[in-house]
């Protein structure tokens, strides 16, 4: 299946986000979107009462990953802004939840994706938003005055 246009020739900044390194990010974000959402859905439906805060947080994390994945795939300035927002929330989430889970283990009786700065997932949840923000900065859509 060949592309209509050679991506390297067409320097359209609009869809640059999903090519090259962006595609790898999309693959990883997609994995976390499915994993975190499915895990949270399972936790919430089977044992919500055991650790409501942790499981709701799992669900929130899942939604953030879904939104980030969709925004990375979609083309356009508006989606770029959505992507930056989602990835920033993700970074904030992993930092806040990571810190809280280390300081106060009682508050998080069960693991979430972001517990211990994503220790259960090889710290990928900590690295991912940083890489995401760097990539989004590189692919920031130019205003019409740009080249």
């Amino acid at each position, binding site marked *: 299946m060949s*592309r209509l246009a050679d991506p390297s020739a067409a320097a359209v900044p609009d869809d640059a986000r999903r090519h*090259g390194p962006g595609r*790898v990010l*999309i*693959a990883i974000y997609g994995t976390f979107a499915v994993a975190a959402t*499915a895990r949270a859905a399972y936790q919430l439906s089977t044992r919500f009462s055991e650790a409501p805060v942790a499981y709701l947080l799992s669900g929130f994390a899942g939604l953030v990953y879904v939104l980030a994945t969709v925004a990375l795939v979609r083309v356009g300035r508006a989606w770029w802004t959505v992507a930056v927002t989602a990835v920033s929330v993700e970074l904030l989430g992993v930092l806040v939840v990571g810190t809280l889970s280390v300081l106060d283990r009682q508050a998080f009786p069960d693991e979430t994706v972001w517990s211990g700065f994503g220790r259960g997932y090889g710290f990928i949840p900590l690295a991912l938003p940083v890489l995401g923000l760097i990539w989004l900065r590189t692919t920031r859509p130019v205003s019409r005055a740009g080249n």
Partner: protein
Amino acid sequence: MIGWLGTALIVGALVVAGLAGVSALRRRGPYLVAVAVAVIVEVMLVVQAVVAVAVAAYGRQTPDEPGLFFSYLVACTAVLPVSVLLARAERTQFGSLVILVGGLVLAVLVVRLQQLWGVAVG
């Protein structure tokens, strides 16, 4: 779970990841052989899935948490096809990296699958 097949799946997934890693280091798109191994692994996965469903259906042995087990099974069979599709339009080292990620994710998923089946597997 067929014990040896589970092990073969993990090895196969890691071979796919390894081959993709080599092509990524050489700044190339995924080698055809990596995709070929991915197809073989996928066929083995489907066989494993059918056997697991059949064994569970006849009540010979059911996993501890069937819902979770079969969700993982579906996720496992989706990983490589989605990775190959994502990599297809990207004939650069980044296409290789997508396959690399897919292989690693699959290996982890198969390990979880074995744990969920709840047997000591060889």
